[in-house]
């Protein structure tokens, strides 16, 4: 096998398990020096365990690759700096940062605590800044670098009970569009992967939620029986991530790729697909007439109020 990443040093956060571990293993196979970062926390961010990162680093080394384990948390400034420093201390440079690390603290907004909000934002979103900031300083000096952030299909579309996760995951894609513009001129690319995969994280969607959806007529296949799980194995996400690390991807910058199973999609930039224009300031009365007729045609409320709710403004029917 060719080794297009030979000589490159790549930090993969959260690579002790799931998608991260598959990315780290493939990067190792493709010749990269890999820092396998994972503090080994539980899905909700509690606890710590050096086992997962150590096992993956060992596996890479056993298979002829080059890897070192790191157990810092991305949620702190020092943790991010330590990872990048370890890459430089161990392998002499830093070429790629892949931020896969994440936790979940799902809760409906009206029940979400400040702590649940803060912890999810600090691991996903501030965690991204914590590793990108020190890496970008070095990448800019060497005029070469690769940054990949992880967003989420459900985060981008919006999923009940995930105000914290949805904010963090869309924040990562917005931040990456800025990074692409801050760093592109220095030979650094910044892109986003919005993965779909069956991992410890997605398995946490409660059975209650699954059965609620089934009651509403939303078909939920039992993924274990349908064979879908194997088609959504996290290993499918790894090739696209590693491709973005290669020299050939030098001009791929500022994009969001949806990757799930054998599918690789390029996400739309956000744009206004229907518009009203007036030479002057609109009035409320004009908007009341034009917005439903011209902007909202065919679009539906993703969570409409139930019919028995007495709702001002809704046309009354018998």
């Amino acid at each position, binding site marked *: 096998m060719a080794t297009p990443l030979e000589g490159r040093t790549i930090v993969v956060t959260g690579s002790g398990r799931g998608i991260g571990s598959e990315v780290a293993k493939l990067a190792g196979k493709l010749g990269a020096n890999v820092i396998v970062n994972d503090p080994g926390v539980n899905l909700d961010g509690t606890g710590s365990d050096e086992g997962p990162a150590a096992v993956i680093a060992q596996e890479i080394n056993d298979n002829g690759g080059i890897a070192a384990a790191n157990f810092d948390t991305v949620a702190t400034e020092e943790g991010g700096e330590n990872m990048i420093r370890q890459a430089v201390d161990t392998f002499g440079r830093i070429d790629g940062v892949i931020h896969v690390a994440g936790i979940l603290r799902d809760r409906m907004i009206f029940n979400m605590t400040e702590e649940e909000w803060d912890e999810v934002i600090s691991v996903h979103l501030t965690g991204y800044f914590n590793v990108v900031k020190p890496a970008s300083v070095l990448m800019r000096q060497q005029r070469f670098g690769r940054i990949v952030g992880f967003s989420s299909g459900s985060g981008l579309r919006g999923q009940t009970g995930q105000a914290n996760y949805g904010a963090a995951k*869309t924040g990562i894609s917005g931040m990456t569009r800025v990074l692409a513009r801050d760093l*592109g001129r220095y030979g650094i690319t910044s892109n986003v992967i919005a993965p779909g995969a069956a991992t410890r994280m997605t398995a946490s969607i409660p059975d209650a939620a699954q059965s609620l959806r089934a009651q509403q007529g939303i078909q939920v296949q039992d993924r274990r029986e349908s064979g879908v799980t194997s088609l959504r194995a996290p290993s499918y996400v790894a090739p696209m991530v590693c491709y973005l690390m290669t020299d050939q991807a030098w001009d791929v910058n500022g994009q969001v790729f949806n990757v799930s199973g*054998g599918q690789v999609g390029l996400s*739309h930039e*956000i744009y206004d*697909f229907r518009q009203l224009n007036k030479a002057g300031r609109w009035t409320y009365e004009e908007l009341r007439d034009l917005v439903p007729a011209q902007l909202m045609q065919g679009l539906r409320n993703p969570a409409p109020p139930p019919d028995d709710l007495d709702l001002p403004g809704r046309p009354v029917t018998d």
Partner: protein
Amino acid sequence: MTKEGHCYMGALDGKVAVVTGSGRGIGRGIALLYAAEGAKVIVNDPGVAVDGSGHDEGPAAQVVNEIKEAGGEATANFDSVAEFTGGENIIRQAVDAYGRIDILVNPAGILRDRMVFNMTHQEWDDVIAVHLKGHFNTIKPASVLMRQQRYGRIINFSSSSGLIGNTGQANYGAAKAGIGGMTRVLARDLGRYGVTVNSISPGAATRMTQSVPDAARELRSQAGISSLSSEQVSPFTRREAEDVAPMAVYLASDDAWNINGEIFYVNGGHVGITSHPIAQKTVFKEGHWEMSELDDAVHNVLLKNKPNPAPPRDDVELPGRDVPGKPLN
């Protein structure tokens, strides 16, 4: 309220609204128009500088005075949305003063622009705290009450900086894009309770956009990108802060009961509804992709005719471009 002595049914008669950051700019325009349309308004603004420093009760107090002089009802609040307790205080003040909360509008924001390689953690944290957590801090307590009363309107503020990307704004872009994503989640959390949650991505000439440094403007004009001079502004290119307010009134009105989870671009006389982040092109393979296959698919299918938003300078020696990269397979 009465206008010129006649009984006038405003679009927001009897509603209680909180507008954060409404001492100046877009927020101020919304507070004034809300009051004119009959809402009782909590005018929140700690009166900080664009970078978040300082404190001045003047701006919020002045907007309240303007509203009262025009015959409307308003109360000033000086809490910071960056604190969880600040958000609670703002919502509590609405309930204490007017008995309920119907509408929450979140324009409060600051800027701390810096290229990412120079950005400090303080600059990151401050911007995330006001914009992104600031939205959570007001929405959380408001959502509890709105859910109980089975009615509510939440209007968030995103920005094209986050949705499209703007140099030197990693913090602001992350926060503003995050607000867009959060809006889609909240619409799904709250829609069934008669609450709508939408976002406005505004364009307006305000104190905040004036802070874009002259150096940046000069650089852009050298690159052939010119901003409009005041003489060039036409009725179609105007972007006054008050132009955002009518759409904020409409989304808050009873008429908009079924508009939920959308992001609207609003600037001057322009109102647009934005696309959802779906894949525009997809390639599929049964099995795991090889590097060389992806190189082909990415360049010849997915990114065909799509430019790099910030291509590397021609004099940067770049493997893969002028220097052959390592073979892929």
